[in-house]
């Protein structure tokens, strides 16, 4: 590579030196790659020991206790109570995802259409709940929705109702709290995709005589689909595994799978059965992730990394 053109060697010499160069380069490259592997090895070993192995060992328990068996899985799907929990979990996650999308889409649209200084200001309002711990936000909803909570007091005060409504520990409370808690996970990907949409395309459509609703339906909306997909994926997967909120504001009939797992471990000490439930939850989450990943690619889900 560094040979100067002044001393051009004979063709055969050159071939040999080229081969040698390639060998040296390859060896150097291997040395560099080895260094990278050394950098990444500590965390891989760490996660393998403190995360990968424990999770796999736990999953293994579901088919290996007391002996090789699929009974624990059979029990989940055979017992109507447990099958119902799975169904409720999927149902709540779906409703939460759809409602979150319907509320977040216009907000993200507005954020993407105002100037970036205004958008940054409004974004702080979106991020304030994101910054606050889920426990604190769930507690806030308990305060708001309680029998003598703020909403009931307010409704009685303005005279709409005479008796306090039962809001806390209902399905409605789970929806209201989960949508508020998960909304930033929908707004952020929507906003980042919408921000990247070329406004000239819409102006062009307008110039060609499209009505505003047509411009939205045929230009803007299709271009925002990657954001919708990423946001829905995040919200849906997070909903499936949600624990704190359904445990605190949900009713006795709104047990989600994470709450059931916690009961099985901490109250009933039925560890193999809890492991089987965890395996079902994990399979569901990974399946959905794989489907979306197929459509989108991981990079787009985690906020985009230029390659």
């Amino acid at each position, binding site marked *: 590579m560094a040979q100067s053109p002044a001393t051009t060697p004979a063709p055969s010499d050159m071939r040999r030196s080229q081969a040698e160069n390639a060998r040296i380069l390859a060896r150097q490259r291997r040395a560099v*790659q080895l260094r*990278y*592997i050394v950098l*990444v090895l*500590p*965390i*891989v070993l*760490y*996660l393998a020991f*403190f*995360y*990968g192995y*424990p*999770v*796999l*060992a*736990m999953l293994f328990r579901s088919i290996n206790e007391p002996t090789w068996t699929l009974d624990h899985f059979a029990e989940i799907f055979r017992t109507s109570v447990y099958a119902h929990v799975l169904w409720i979990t999927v149902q709540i996650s779906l409703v939460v995802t759809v409602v979150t999308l319907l509320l977040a889409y*216009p*907000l993200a649209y*507005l954020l993407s259409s105002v100037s970036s200084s205004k958008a940054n200001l*409004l974004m702080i*309002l*979106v*991020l*304030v*709940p*994101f*910054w*606050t*711990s*889920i*426990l*604190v936000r769930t*507690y*806030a*909803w*308990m*305060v708001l929705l309680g029998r003598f*909570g*703020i909403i009931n*007091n307010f409704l009685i005060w303005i005279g709409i109702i005479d008796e306090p409504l039962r809001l806390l520990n209902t399905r409605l409370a789970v929806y209201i709290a989960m949508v*508020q808690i998960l*909304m*930033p996970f929908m707004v952020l990907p929507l906003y980042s995709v919408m921000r990247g949409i070329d406004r000239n395309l819409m102006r062009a459509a*307008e*110039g060609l005589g499209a009505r505003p609703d047509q411009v939205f339906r045929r230009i803007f909306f299709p271009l925002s689909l990657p954001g919708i997909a990423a946001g829905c994926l995040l919200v849906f*997967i997070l909903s499936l*595994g949600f624990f*704190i909120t359904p445990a605190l504001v949900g009713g006795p009939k709104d047990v989600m799978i*994470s709450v059931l*797992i916690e009961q099985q*471990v901490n109250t009933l000490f039925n*560890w193999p059965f*809890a*492991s089987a439930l*965890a395996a079902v*939850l*994990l399979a569901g*989450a990974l399946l959905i992730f794989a489907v979306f990943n197929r459509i989108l690619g991981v990079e787009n889900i*985690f906020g985009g990394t230029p390659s």
Partner: protein
Amino acid sequence: MTSTTARPAKVQSTPRRQLPSLPRLALYVFCTLVLIYLVFPVLVVIPLSFSSAQYLTFPPPGFSLQWYRNFFERSDWISAAILSFWVACVVMVLATILGTLASLALVRGRFPGRGLVNTFIVSPLIVPAIIVAIGIYFFYARLGIVGQPIALITAHTALAVPFVVVNVTATLYGFDERLEFAAMNLGANRLQTFWHVTLPIIRPGVLAGALFAFITSWDELIVALFISGTGAVTLPRKMWDSIRFQIDPTIAAVSTLLIIITGSLFFSAEMLRRRSERLRTAVVVEEEG
């Protein structure tokens, strides 16, 4: 021809920008309501924490600092807060070191299995927390370290590393490697180059990742629910127990403190992220221009 096609567009778009049309107005109203829905529940806790009443009632009948006094005078609350704080500090250091090293390899390296390693490292973000929690619980129960701070530290570090990796890799993608070549050309060794050239440039990403790691541990409840035992009760765990058994306004006081602490940390992280984004675009513009 061009002027006739351009004119109707101009005529149409100018008045719309000046006077908000009906759909635009509806959009404003709708978004205002959504923003209130997002922010109000967080803010409502704050006045409650200064209530003079013995139970939760709104509006508070009078002003009092009794719930803050209650928090600061009770050793179980204070010791939980102290434990949470130092555990989070250790987690932050461990996760930042491990995560930053891994990020360098993931962005620069082209070794076989890189994609797989990347997926493995960020996978704690996707796997539901309850699954990680019970896996770790069963494992630690066998090791006999449930209820010890070391259990929390090791578990929280595993959960925090992905946040460091996501933040640092984002900064590294915009990094101009020629700066490192220049440093090494001038006689710096690898370590000196990293310490004096690479690290100062990617610092916003590293610091943002560190803050995320801190908050991940500081706010973490689900793993703590299983492995805190009675010996290592963190602040979220203490709050959870307290919310389950009695709702007194002490929780409101603790929540207010948490909102302030976590809020200011996230705010700093966000500022750092913005700064690193600016640096990144600056590099791109420079290269293009």
